[in-house]
C-alpha cells in the first residue's frame, strides 16, 4: 500500500474552495505583505520600490496628526467599548426583569445598529449643532444657560463622536448580552434565590462570569468596529475642528490619495494592523496552551488506560 490512491471528491472540494483560497491568500496575505513592504519605501502616489528603511515610521511618529489620531482611537475605543459594555449590560439585565414591553424596547435599542454610520454621523452632527440642535432648542425653552455643543470645541469634539458611537453600538451589546443571559441555566437563579443572594449581586458576581462568551463576543465585535472607524468621522466632523477628531483610518485613506504619500500611509496602515496581530497572537497563544494541556491530559489518560 505504498501508493495511496487519491479520491475524487476532495478535488471537487478544492475546486469549490478556489474563491476562498484566492481571497485568503491573495487578499489577506499578499496584499498585506505588499502594504507592509510599501511602508519601507518612498512611494508617493504610485508604488515605488526604493527602500528607505524606517524613515516613514520615524516621520509617522513625528506627525502630530498621527499622534492625535492614535490618542483619539484609544480614547474613543476605551470609552465607547466601556460604555457600550456597561450600558449594554445594564439594559440587558433590566430587560431581563420580565418587562412587558420587552420586544418594543429591544426594537428601539437596536435599530441604530441597522443604520449606516454615515447616517448616524449626519444625524448627530445635526443634533449637536449649536445654532440649530439640542442647545438651540433648550435655549428656546428658556434654559439660556444650557450649553451642549461638544463638536464645536476641539477639547470635547471626540466626546461628541463617542455619544454617536454609543448610540450606535449599545443596543447590539445589549442584544448579545441578553442572549447570553437567557442562556444561563435557570437553576442558577433558583439557587441564588434560595441562598438569599440579592438580585443585583447575582447579576454582578454570579451571572456576569457565566456569560464570558457573550461578553467576549460583544467585546471583539466592538474592537473590530473601533479600529475601522472611518465613515462616522467623515460624516460627522471630517476630522475637525482642526484635527481634533482625526482617526488612523482617515489618516491612511487621506495619505494614499490626496496627500500622495503612500509610503507613510502604508506605515500608518501597518501600525493599525499591529494591535490586531497582538490581539490574535495572545488569543492564539492561549488557545495553543489549552490545546496542549488537553493533549497532555489525553495522553495521560491513554497511558493510564493502556495499563489497566
Amino acid at each position, binding site marked *: 500500500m505504498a501508493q495511496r490512491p487519491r479520491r*475524487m*471528491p*476532495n478535488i*471537487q*472540494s*478544492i475546486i*469549490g474552495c478556489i*474563491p*476562498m483560497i484566492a*481571497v*485568503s*491568500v*491573495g*487578499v*489577506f496575505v*499578499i*496584499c498585506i505583505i505588499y*502594504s507592509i513592504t510599501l511602508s519601507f519605501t518612498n512611494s508617493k502616489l504610485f508604488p515605488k520600490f526604493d527602500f528607505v528603511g524606517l524613515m516613514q515610521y520615524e516621520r509617522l511618529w513625528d506627525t502630530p496628526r498621527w499622534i492625535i489620531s492614535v490618542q483619539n482611537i484609544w480614547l474613543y475605543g476605551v470609552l465607547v467599548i466601556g460604555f457600550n459594555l456597561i*450600558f449594554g449590560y*445594564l439594559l440587558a439585565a*433590566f430587560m431581563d*426583569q420580565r*418587562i412587558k414591553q420587552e420586544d418594543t*424596547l429591544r*426594537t*428601539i435599542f*437596536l*435599530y441604530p445598529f*441597522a443604520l*449606516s454610520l*454615515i*447616517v*448616524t454621523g449626519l*444625524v448627530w452632527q*445635526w*443634533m449637536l449643532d449649536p445654532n440649530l*440642535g*439640542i442647545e*438651540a*432648542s433648550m*435655549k*428656546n425653552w428658556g434654559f439660556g444657560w444650557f450649553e451642549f455643543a461638544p463638536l464645536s470645541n476641539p477639547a470635547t469634539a471626540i466626546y461628541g463622536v463617542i455619544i454617536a458611537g454609543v*448610540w450606535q453600538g449599545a*443596543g*447590539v451589546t445589549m*442584544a448579545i448580552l441578553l442572549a447570553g443571559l437567557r442562556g444561563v441555566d435557570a437553576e442558577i437563579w433558583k439557587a441564588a434565590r434560595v441562598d438569599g443572594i440579592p438580585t443585583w449581586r447575582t447579576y454582578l458576581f454570579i451571572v456576569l462570569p457565566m456569560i464570558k462568551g457573550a461578553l467576549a*463576543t460583544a467585546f*471583539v*465585535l466592538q474592537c473590530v468596529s473601533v479600529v*475601522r472607524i*472611518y465613515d462616522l468621522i467623515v*460624516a460627522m466632523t471630517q476630522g475637525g475642528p482642526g484635527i481634533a477628531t482625526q482617526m*488612523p*483610518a482617515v489618516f*491612511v*485613506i487621506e495619505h494614499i490619495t490626496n496627500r500622495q504619500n*503612500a509610503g507613510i*500611509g502604508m506605515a500608518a*496602515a501597518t501600525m*493599525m494592523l499591529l494591535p490586531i496581530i497582538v490581539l490574535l497572537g495572545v488569543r492564539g497563544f492561549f488557545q495553543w496552551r489549552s490545546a496542549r494541556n488537553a493533549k497532555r491530559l489525553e495522553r495521560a489518560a491513554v497511558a493510564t488506560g493502556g495499563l489497566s
Partner: protein
Amino acid sequence: MTAATSEWQASAVEPRVDAGPRGPKPRRVSIARIGIYAFLVMSAIYFTIPLWVMVVTSLKTMPEIRQGHLFAWPSELTFEPWVKAWAEACTGRDCNGLKPGFWNSVKITVPSVIISIVIAAINGYALSFWRFKGSEVFFGLLLFGAFVPYQVVIYPLIIAFREMGIFATLPGIIIIHTIFGMPILTLLFRNFFGALPMELFKAARVDGAGFWQIFVMIMLPMSVPIAIVAVIIQVTGIWNDFLFGVVFAGRENMPMTVQLNNIVITTTGIREYNVHMAATILTAAVPLAIYFISGKWFVRGIAAGAVKG
C-alpha cells in the same frame, strides 16, 4: 379523560383554609421596579430622539428650522424636502437627487449578496465535511481577514483591480463586497454546517451522492435559516457601506451612502437641512425596513455574525 376525572375529584375535596396569605402574590410596585422602568424609558428616549428629529426636521420648512425648535412637530407640514431629496437634490450640475444612488445600491447589493452567500455556503460546507490538506490554514487566514482594518488592504487592492481592469466597475465593487463579506459569512456557514450531524453527511455518501449533489440536494435546502441570517447581515452591511463605495464603485455605480454624503456636503446658497434629513431617512430606509421586518432574525444574525471568542 383520566386527567379530567382526577381534577373533578380534587375539586370535590374541601380545601383547608389556613391563616396567612393565599392566592396570587399581590403586585408590589417597588422602588427598584420604578427605577428599572425609569432607566429603560430614559434609554428609549435617548435611542429614539435622533429618529424623531430626523423625521420632524424633514417635514419642516427652512424658516421653521431656523427658529431652532429641534424637537417640535412641524407647524406647517411640507413634503417638498422628500421630493427634493429623492429626485431633485444637486451634487454639482447633476440634480437627480438620491434616486440614481438608490438604484445603484440595489444594483450593487443584490448580486453581491447572492454571490457572497453562495461562495460562503460552499466554503462552510467544504470546511465542515470535505476538509483537504491546508483547508484549515486557509480558513484561519480568512478569519484573520475578519479583523484586518480595511485600510491596510485598500491600496494594494486598487492597484490589483487596475491590473485586472475592474477598478470602478460594477463587477469590481461586487467582488470587493464578496471578498470582505467572505470571512464572517464563511464562519457563519461553517458553524452552521459544523453543528449538523456528521451522520447526515455520511448517510448521503453511503447513498452515493458526491460533493455537489450533497451540497445542492441535502445541505442547501437545510440552510435556509442561516441563509436568511446571512442575507440580513449582507444587505444591511453592503447597503450601509461607504468606504468601498467611494473608492471602488466608480462614478456610474455610486451607492446611496456616497451620494447622500455628497448631497449633504454640497451647498449652494443655504444649507437645506430638511432636504438633508429626508435624504438621510431615505438612505436608512432599506436597512431599517429589513430590521423591522426581520425582527428576531436580525438579533440572531448579530449573535451569529459576531466573531466567536
